[in-house]
């Protein structure tokens, strides 16, 4: 028993000793490990670039802006634990997070319950809308993107398609919304296959899809999953039929060129009119965008800094009303204009049609 | 050929099971170790064989101290053969494979020669060379395990209750075989037995153990005639 008390005492001393607060601090919960680690890393890059840009221009409220990154490990409860640390120990002004909708939703609900402003930089499931009053999306939701995709697919003359999506909130949202829009526009979904992310093979799923003899395969996949799926589709000879990827940048970087020849798809448009961000990214990291999400994370950070500046303090109620104000007014970042609707969701965002050329993605109208 | 001096041994950190036992056995001699259940017979044999390290005292074979030499090295380098009590054949291996295992380390020609000789000596085995050992009867297994030890031509043979689980008829066959080995090959044999009177019938000398100590040490013939022995098994007790 004595030992236990000693352990407790030691850890609580450790706990109070660690956080050092001087700067304006915001938190970010990202999937820095797990299957979405590449996406999470790309988000982190976007945030870093934004922080550099803000601090170069004098910071926020006269202080340098600091972002504390926490890893969700792609697990909801870890994400909530991480948020708890950010909120109660680091005392952050607001929290940016996460990547996949299945985690963003419980994370957001926790933050809403705590009264902490939550900015969603990436998750597009329709369910995000219901998180709560102090949660805001810096990205347009599925209903917008899948309608765009369904139209694009039909325009290319493919009437019967098999849909593959990962079995989580985002994938289920995409599959349902796409199916609804596609049927409404007169197409037919032959089968909808929900696969578990992180497998070592997707042959079974691919063969299930193939047996329905579709005109084309419509799929969405995270980084490593997408790469493997494209390789196996190639090996199985399924690429004789066209493949169409919803949010193609999620896995493009993880897919070797030889397995994605002829792949087309759509994604959010992250370079709007302004190419300076693209240049900064390439200079800093020596490669082109790994996904669309760095741009959104970048804009989310800029948006956050701007609201704190407007609020005049890191006081949460003040920050919240500043977000509402700025959202109604509109704010222009590298992904175009961010304007929020009554639910705090981004009303519009640009999309682009893309195709693979070698290793890179190019516009494909 | 075997000299055990004041052996003390036990399992794990348990109490001593052998409380200072000394024993000798010479060439062309069949020595049997007797005693009631739990007196330490098998433990003594295991300690001599090298399964168990003595806590004190020592074992010499051919005049060399081998107290800490593990069993497999004794078999390979000190010409020792050991036949455990039950479960003494490799059930999943064929009769031929069992014998070949016994002949490990020997060249092909020698193996073949001795193999054939054993087949001639033990016709029960010859007819079942390709069978799995698990298909043999209890007596056949006993013979097989004996043959497996003999193929390496040991000079010292340690037997742990060769009669265990055998029918009386089979028992005589096995004991006769053992006595035959001593006589024909001049081997030194130490045999632990429950079947006291049968064992005494073939043995030269006997040690009777009680609670981890030697209670009686005498020539087998004398013991067989000894009323104390009769008492031990039919209503007597050695204090």
């Amino acid at each position, binding site marked *: 028993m004595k030992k236990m008390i000693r352990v407790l005492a030691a850890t609580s001393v450790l706990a109070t000793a660690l956080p050092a607060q001087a700067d304006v601090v915001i938190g970010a919960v990202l999937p820095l490990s797990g299957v979405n680690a590449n996406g999470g890393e790309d988000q982190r890059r976007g945030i870093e670039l934004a922080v550099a840009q803000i601090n170069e221009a004098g910071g926020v409220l006269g202080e340098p802006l600091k972002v504390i990154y926490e890893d969700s490990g792609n697990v909801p409860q870890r994400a909530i634990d991480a948020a708890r640390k950010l909120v109660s120990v680091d005392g952050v002004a607001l929290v940016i997070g996460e990547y996949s909708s299945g985690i963003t939703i419980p994370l957001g609900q926790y933050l809403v319950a705590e009264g902490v402003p939550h900015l969603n930089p990436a998750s597009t499931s329709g369910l995000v809308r219901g998180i709560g009053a102090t949660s805001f999306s810096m990205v347009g939701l599925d209903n917008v993107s899948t309608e765009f995709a369904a139209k694009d697919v039909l325009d290319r003359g493919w009437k019967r398609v098999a849909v593959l999506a990962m079995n989580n909130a985002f994938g289920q949202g995409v599959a349902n919304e796409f199916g609804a829009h596609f049927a409404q526009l007169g197409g037919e979904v032959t089968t909808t296959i929900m696969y578990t992310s*992180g497998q070592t093979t*997707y042959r079974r799923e691919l063969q299930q899809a193939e047996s329905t003899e579709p005109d084309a395969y419509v799929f969405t996949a995270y980084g*490593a999953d997408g*790469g493997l799926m494209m390789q196996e589709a190639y090996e199985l*000879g399924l690429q004789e039929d066209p493949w169409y990827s919803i949010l193609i940048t999620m896995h493009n970087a993880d897919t070797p060129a030889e397995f994605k020849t002829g792949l087309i798809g759509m994604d959010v448009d992250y370079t709007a009119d302004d190419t300076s961000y693209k240049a900064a990214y390439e200079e800093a990291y020596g490669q082109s965008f790994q996904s669309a999400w760095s741009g959104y994370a970048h804009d989310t950070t800029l948006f956050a800094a701007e609201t704190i500046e407007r609020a005049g303090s890191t006081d949460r109620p003040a920050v919240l009303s500043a977000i509402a104000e700025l959202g109604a007014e509109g704010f222009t970042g590298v992904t175009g204009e961010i304007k929020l609707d009554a639910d705090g969701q981004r009303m519009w965002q640009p999309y682009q049609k893309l195709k693979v050329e070698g290793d890179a993605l190019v516009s494909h109208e | 050929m075997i000299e055990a001096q004041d052996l003390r041994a036990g399992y794990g950190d348990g109490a001593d099971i052998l409380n200072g036992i000394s024993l000798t056995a010479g060439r062309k001699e069949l020595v049997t170790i007797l005693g009631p259940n739990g007196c330490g017979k098998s433990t003594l044999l295991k300690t001599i064989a090298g399964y168990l390290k003595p806590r004190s005292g020592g074992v010499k074979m051919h005049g060399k101290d081998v107290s800490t030499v593990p069993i*497999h090295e004794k078999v390979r380098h000190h010409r020792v053969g050991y036949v455990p009590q039950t*479960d003494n054949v*490799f059930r999943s291996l064929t009769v031929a494979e069992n014998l070949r295992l016994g002949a490990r380390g020997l060249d092909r020609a020698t193996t073949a020669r001795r193999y054939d000789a054993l087949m001639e000596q033990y016709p029960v085995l010859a007819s079942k060379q390709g069978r799995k050992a698990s298909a043999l009867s209890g007596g056949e297994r006993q013979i097989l395990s004996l043959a497996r030890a003999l193929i390496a031509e040991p000079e010292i043979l340690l037997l742990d209750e060769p009669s265990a689980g055998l029918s009386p008829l089979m028992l005589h066959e096995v004991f006769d075989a053992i006595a035959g080995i001593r006589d024909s090959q001049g081997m030194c044999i130490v045999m632990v037995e429950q079947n006291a009177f049968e064992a005494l019938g073939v043995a030269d000398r006997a040690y009777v153990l009680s609670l981890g100590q030697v209670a009686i040490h005498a020539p087998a013939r004398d013991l067989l005639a000894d009323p104390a022995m009769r008492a031990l098994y039919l209503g007597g007790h050695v204090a």
Partner: protein
Amino acid sequence: MVQFIFDTLFRAADLALIAVALSAVYSLIRFPNVALVQYAVVGAFVGMALQQQGVPIVPAVLLASLLVGGIAQVFNAVIFQRLLRLDPAIALIGSLALSMVLSAGFLLGFGPAAQRFSVQVAPATRVFGVRVTEMQVLTGGLTVAILIAFALLLFRTPLGREMRAVSTNPVLAAATGVNTARVTGLVVFLSGVIAALGGAMLALRGSVSIDMGTNMLLPVFAAAILGGLGNAFGAVFGAIVIAAAETLITNLNFGPIVGQDHVFLPASYAPAASFALLVAVLLFRPRGIFVSEVTRV
């Protein structure tokens, strides 16, 4: 149908090597060593790392397997021999713990993403109306070759005879002059090598991520237990049964039943099929279908 058989066989090949290694080592060291599945991942990762250092693929895989064999021996000597003295169940917990530590090591060393050997990948060709890729044929053939080589070693050589002798009766084997510690060490080494080769074959056919060990754990165990743990070649049979069950459950079209064209069970139920089979076997035939030589106490 032909496609079904091929899918089953290739899935069985995924499992067979690791399951055989597991069974072989179980026959001598009587506890289910969960870490063996992670050895397969180590083998694949080390092979890929060597290839990235410029070692050609064949020596890279061989070198990696030998290395894993050595690692298996070290872990066995340092960890499992000591834990087994306490209790086989403790050794099982230890092997689970070792698996976690190894996963952590992979995460730090190789990152979370799936990795591949850099080999030429060609699209599948059709044989008997079934699509097979060059790599599938090659690795499948190699798997069979490794299994045959292991069988020959076990049943046709004096060393194999000693291995079988030690596994059926270690006490007697020692009494026959077999150095049981050396034979056990050798089998541990071989199990590491075979598991690593199994991992490399998997990596050659697709990709290997740090989660592979966790994902393979139960199917491999299901195969090994189905075949009767300790019965090395029963494990091959077990692998085929498990593979068939997994393939069947994902190939069944429930569409007609519910009045649609195509409704499949999600393929992610496939592992549940193998686990359920495992549980059923344990419920009704607690010692596997082929009762092995190992009598359990």
